[in-house]
């Protein structure tokens, strides 16, 4: 990705830290990279495997690092910039201290979908990308898989592939996969009869380990280390591994994101037991749209709907 490296090389003097992605423990896995030295810039990559939303680190990084004249560079995909906008809206991130590298995003890969799409099972030794094709090399030969067939769910309903706010945008804009907000998956669950819906969620949440990966991966979960779901005073949930307590934790998460969630889908990506927890937040986004015609993380100056009111609104 010549342009990312060349851009960073030119600006490295003004930067104190660059947050991007690098190859992880296996070629098919990208992992966040915190580069502080020039020679490590080469490790950075940008391709459809770079799924993690790096805006989740910004509040903590900016809080612990003292304010110097140098900036913190961060690579953000289209949906990631919506999370950053929401953080700016609520005052958790000081925009001036960031050098935002906006990356128009063709969509990220869903590892489970990729595993199923692959024909041979030998470990992949090398991955390359060529306009919407993944080329996997392994000792059993190479394999070409179209990106569209292994897209993550969040990307299939993405309407914000291009960065909302950025200091520089590397790469030309990508057409959005949906123009209007699409809640097909939410409506699919809504179409179930009430009892069946409850049974569905009870079955899904039964698998929950309560490991809180979904909470900690969420850029807008700002309580960091003081979450209500673990609190004993006040005590809303018990430590039991019961479906109801896990349900209450997910309700706390959903209600705290009502009118704030930017639908980046990280919570669902990181869930080890594959529970579609993002559906809770997408339902909240749908309600916020219906009730107040509000989309989170679009306008930095807007106030989240539950943080304000309108005396003249009727119907509710």
């Amino acid at each position, binding site marked *: 990705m010549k342009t990312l490296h060349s851009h960073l090389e030119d600006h490295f003097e003004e930067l104190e830290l660059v947050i991007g992605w690098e190859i992880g423990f296996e070629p098919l896995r990208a992992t966040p990279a915190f580069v502080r030295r020039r020679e490590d810039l080469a490790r950075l990559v940008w391709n459809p495997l770079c799924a993690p939303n790096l805006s989740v680190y910004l509040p903590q990084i900016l809080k612990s690092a003292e304010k110097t004249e140098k900036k913190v560079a961060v690579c953000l995909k289209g949906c990631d910039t919506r999370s950053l906008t929401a953080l700016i809206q*609520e*005052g*958790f991130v000081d925009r001036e201290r960031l050098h935002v590298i906006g990356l128009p995003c063709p969509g990220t890969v869903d590892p489970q979908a990729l595993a199923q799409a692959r024909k041979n099972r030998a470990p992949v030794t090398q991955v390359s990308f060529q306009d919407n094709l993944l080329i996997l090399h392994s000792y059993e030969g190479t394999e070409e898989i179209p990106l569209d067939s292994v897209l993550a769910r969040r990307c299939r309903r993405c309407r914000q592939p291009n960065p909302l706010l950025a200091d520089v945008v590397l790469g030309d804009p990508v057409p959005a996969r949906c123009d209007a907000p699409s809640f097909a998956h939410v409506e699919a669950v809504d179409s179930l009869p009430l009892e069946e819906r409850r049974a569905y969620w009870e079955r899904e949440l039964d698998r929950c380990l309560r490991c809180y990966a979904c909470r900690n991966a969420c850029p807008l979960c*700002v*309580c*960091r280390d*003081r*979450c*209500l779901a673990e*609190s004993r*005073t*006040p*005590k*809303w949930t018990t430590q039991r591994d019961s479906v109801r307590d896990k349900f209450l934790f997910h309700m706390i998460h959903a209600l*705290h994101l009502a009118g704030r969630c930017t639908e980046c889908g990280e919570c669902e990506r990181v869930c080890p037991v594959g529970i579609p927890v993002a559906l809770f937040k997408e339902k909240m986004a749908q309600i916020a749209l219906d009730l107040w015609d509000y989309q989170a993380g679009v306008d930095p100056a807007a*106030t989240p709907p*539950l*943080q*304000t009111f309108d005396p003249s609104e009727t119907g509710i």
Partner: protein
Amino acid sequence: MRIGVFVCQCGTNIASTVDTGAVAQRALDYPDVVFATDYMYTCSEPGQQEIQKAIAEHRLQGVVVAACSPRMHEATFRRAVEKAGLNRYMFEMANIREHVSWIGQDKGANTLKAMELVRMAVEKLRRNEPLFASEVPINKRVLVIGGGVAGIQAALDCADAGLDVVLVEREQSIGGKMAKLDKTFPTIDCSSCILGPKMVDVAQKENITLHAYSEVEAVSGYIGNFTVKIRKKATYVDWDACTGCGLCMEKCPSKKTVDRFNENLGTTSAIQIPFPQAIPKKARIQKDACRYFATGKCKVCQKICPTNAIHYDMEDREVVEEVGAIIVATGYDLFDPAPYGEYGAGRYPDVITGIQFERILSASGPFGGHVKRPSDGKEPKDIVFVACVGSRDKSVDRPYCSGICCMYIAKQAILARDHLPGVQCYVFYMDIRSPGKNYDEFVRRAIEEYGVQYIRGRVGKIYPRGDRMVVQGADTLLGAQVEVEADLVVLATGVESSRGAKELAEKLRISYDQYGFYMESHPKLRPVETNTAGVYLAGACQGPKDIPASVAQGSAAASKVLALFARDTIATDPQVAGVLESVCIGCGKCLSVCPFGAIQWKTLRDGSRKAEVLETVCQGCGLCNATCPPKAIQLKHFTDDQILAELDALCA
């Protein structure tokens, strides 16, 4: 924790449909309950002593009383347990009267419900903590809104007691409706003779600051420390310079201005002093009638004013007053009879309202006290009074009785006879309401001495015949339809809430009923207080009433303020929010939702910022508690754990 449960029988109010003995027995099974009994009248003196005795004897640390509504006796019992050495917040009430015994006959279901309400109260009490009120200095100044007789009385009483008073009156002069009256019932005192001196007192007392022709713009703060923004509307006359000589009124060319003080009966000049005894006796230019404002020329008044007090470029001004208590005495308005198309009010000049007839009777009225017909100025030989116009009538949404019309009809009939000995008065009425002292005797005098003809029935139609009016109505005692020809018809219009009452209520955060009359804290026990601490009511703004009652309420409200200001400080309600700093993440959501600005930032040594509650400003609404994601901020006495405890007591 050692808890005592006291189940009140409230005579038969509770005992009749709730087995209080069983409730007390069942309470012994609840956690931490070490003593439980039921009692005939727990709120009575002996009842409270029972509680105090039990606290000592059983070393109780918390008390639950299952009786009436906490809105009724929570304060009583808190004082009782406090006397016995308990903190007054280690006390909970279960409302088993208004919410249980009085609303259901099924004794079994009621008893079960009572047991569960006691269970909820016990579970909440187990999580209560002692709370201690903090003291806040009181700003011993009082604001009176409304300069009618009630407001004047309240202001004078407070001023006599040495308080600083700020009186705000929306009209150009104080005096309210009473200033428009000629005489008052039942003594036929001349209204301005008894009101005038009080108005002069208001002007002369140094510790009364009068803001006439001004309106309250915004109210913030809380009991003991209100901040009130007052908008002083532009009068285009510098009231410091104006001496009230009235020269400008004589010379003002636009004489055809509708005289609102005389209820649109006469005309006056664009620059006007409403009535001779006006306080402050200062002129005011009515902008829409003034030629200068219309055409840019004229300026007659500016030229001839001896103290050149006229300033056409005058703007509204805003004044801020800091006060400790507010007395609302904004009075009432009279019903506009237009909805009664069949009476022809507004179509026929000789069909007038009671207040208009009062102006006609008044020496400072449009006809100088001579009773004449507005149409042709002739002296009427027959006058018909129609009672209950806009009162006791659901079809115009005024089902209530206005209380004063029967009396002022009788008065006006007597006065009419005084002015014109030959006049014959008729009164169409449904029932005569004359409850006050010497009231009914007064009406009897009107009938017996002044020959007023009372016809019991409503009026169906009023229409002209020749130059006279025909009043067609029923006479239910004769059982026939009657027609009365009259030269003048007076519609006794009823009382309604004053224009703008609702908007002011929202500024003061007091509630009002569907007709716009302000809600007193308790109709019988606390008629002059509101649910907002530090805001009191006086006069007709709280409901239709006559002058004696309004004056009495003026004094009552003043005495409430004096009681409040008797102490230098006031104990604040400790049911306020508190922040657990280790849990606060400094997200600022609580600051942005707090309606009272009671939360501010606090920077710790390590530079991190946390929310901090100003206990004196916090009103205890709990918005911050509901908004805080990690629940770092908790509203004392209504914490999450306490509410969850009550919830868990009900369902697994």
